[in-house]
């Protein structure tokens, strides 16, 4: 347990040190991107990993928040109004998604969320009087909470890190709570949960709302990071990328989506500078993960590490026992 806390403290210190260690602005911005996508993936993971409900429409939720913020800012409102409006828009959209999609589960749930996500994308693309269509909406300034400017790469990174840490803590508290246990129960045995007195639909609904809240927060970070929003951010590929982060890192784990977000963002932005066919590389990495660590990078690495540790401990006493004997003790059993 103390080792765990020490590792956690070290990780947080390392994250704080990023802008000091990396002087190049470009890479600080990549770090900000990783963190904001991690918030998105954490939100999606609540539903996919802990609720067993695979959504292919989550970019619609973060997108609704992004557009609301951009629209309000373009209309001349302040950042507080824009952020509050974005959260409200994100949560309202989530409630609509949940009410329509939770009638189903499994494949049908995926298809309904996919269709809903496409509707939001269609609105962003075609409702030109509000969204400015394909041209998108530009955001002139980033907010300056408590007089601290977020205009620089470092300033924005720090703000994103704070939001990210709050999101991780919120997820940690959520999944270890009684409600989190109830959600995992509805994933594993919905019928039994119902027979035990749980309101399965309502549990899933509130989990969806929490997931949507994190998506909306990620959407707000996204629009401020890019200072621009266009329908591209709401496309099916954006939802699929989020899902890729969750599954490659490890669905149903706290750290998995963060690692998955780092993987996807790095391949997409950094490796793509060296390899033109980075999409191919990302696909190949994903295939390798599915083949060798179907449970995801984080739980997969833990499993391999434990196996190696156990193997090393077994070999040591065995070698010590075999050495003094120095005679063939028979064929080792396969």
């Amino acid at each position, binding site marked *: 347990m103390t080792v765990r806390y020490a590792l956690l403290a070290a990780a947080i210190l390392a994250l704080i040190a990023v802008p000091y260690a990396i002087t190049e602005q470009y890479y600080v911005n990549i770090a900000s991107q990783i963190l904001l996508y991690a918030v998105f993936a954490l939100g999606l993971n609540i539903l996919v990993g802990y609720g067993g409900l695979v959504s292919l429409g989550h970019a619609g939720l973060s997108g609704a928040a992004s557009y609301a913020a951009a629209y309000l800012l373009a209309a001349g409102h302040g950042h507080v109004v824009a952020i509050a409006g974005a959260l409200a828009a994100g949560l309202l959209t989530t409630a609509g998604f949940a009410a329509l999609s939770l009638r189903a589960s499994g494949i049908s749930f995926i298809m309904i969320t996919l269709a809903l996500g496409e509707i939001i994308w269609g609105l962003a693309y075609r409702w030109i009087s509000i969204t400015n269509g394909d041209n998108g909406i530009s955001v002139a300034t980033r907010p300056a909470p408590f007089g601290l400017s977020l205009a620089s790469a470092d300033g924005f990174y720090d703000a994103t890190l704070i939001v990210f840490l709050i999101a991780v803590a919120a997820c940690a*508290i*959520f999944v*270890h*709570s*009684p*409600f*989190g*246990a*109830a959600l*995992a*129960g509805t994933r*594993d*045995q919905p*019928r*039994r*949960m*119902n*027979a*035990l*007195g*749980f*309101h*399965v639909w309502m549990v899933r609904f*509130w989990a969806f709302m*929490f997931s949507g809240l994190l998506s909306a927060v990620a959407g707000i970070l996204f629009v401020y990071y890019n200072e621009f929003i266009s329908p591209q951010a709401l496309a099916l590929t954006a939802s699929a990328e989020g899902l890729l982060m969750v599954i490659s890192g490890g669905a149903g784990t706290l750290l998995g989506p963060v690692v998955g977000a780092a993987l996807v963002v790095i391949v997409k932005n950094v490796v793509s500078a060296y390899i033109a066919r980075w999409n191919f590389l990302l696909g190949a990495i994903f295939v390798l993960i599915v083949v060798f660590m179907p449970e995801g990078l984080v739980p997969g690495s833990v499993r391999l590490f434990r196996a190696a540790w156990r193997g090393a401990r077994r070999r040591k006493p065995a070698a010590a026992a075999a050495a003094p004997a120095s005679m063939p003790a028979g064929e080792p059993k396969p």
Partner: protein
Amino acid sequence: MSALAVKNLSKSFGGLRVTANVNFAVEPGERRLIIGPNGAGKTTLFNLITGELTPDAGSVLLFDRDITRLPSRNRPHLGMARTYQIITLFPRDTILRNAMLALLGLSPLRWNPFAALHRQQHLRDAARAALARVGLAEMAERPLAETSYGEKRRVEIAMALAQQPRVLLLDEPFAGLSIDERRDVRSLLSSIPRDVTVVMIEHDMDTALDLADRITLLHFGEVVVEGTRAEVVADPRTREVYLGE
């Protein structure tokens, strides 16, 4: 007042009548055995009583309260608990956590997204007590996936008992058990206090006969015979159903 009463209950799947005008009443504290050959409609009857299926006609009464239209998730809160014929547990969790989920189902705490579940000492204690009743206290921390079939059966029963039901519905609690395990489960079931009414399904006549006060024989969705143990065993219609004479 009966603990559980079923009145003119009917259910059809398409053209197949699986429950045909079933009537019976179970007194408080009674042990009722519902028997019938495979396909007699026993589990369907349970699903109608617990509300997992909605009847086409008729009503279900729990301590004289009509619960026919009550959603199934509300019935545990009124004191109705059930087990499943096919093990329906949480394989990723420990035995203790399975039992804790059963307790959580009736607790307002289940909506709390802020508290730490593992710090809820009263829940843990109650879950351990429920596991002790079925002789699993020693292995409470073991993952469910690493337990035997017979132990899983006992977890099923522990979870139902943990909810302190007034009416306990057991769907083939002996299914798939070895002779030793059957003996364990039988002594476990006979230790349930009489303030709990027990309704049990079994398709094999001999297995649970000695646990029952009264027996209802179901065949093709209909009640064929109902009476005391001796009456039902002696009835020629019982022989007819089971031996096809």
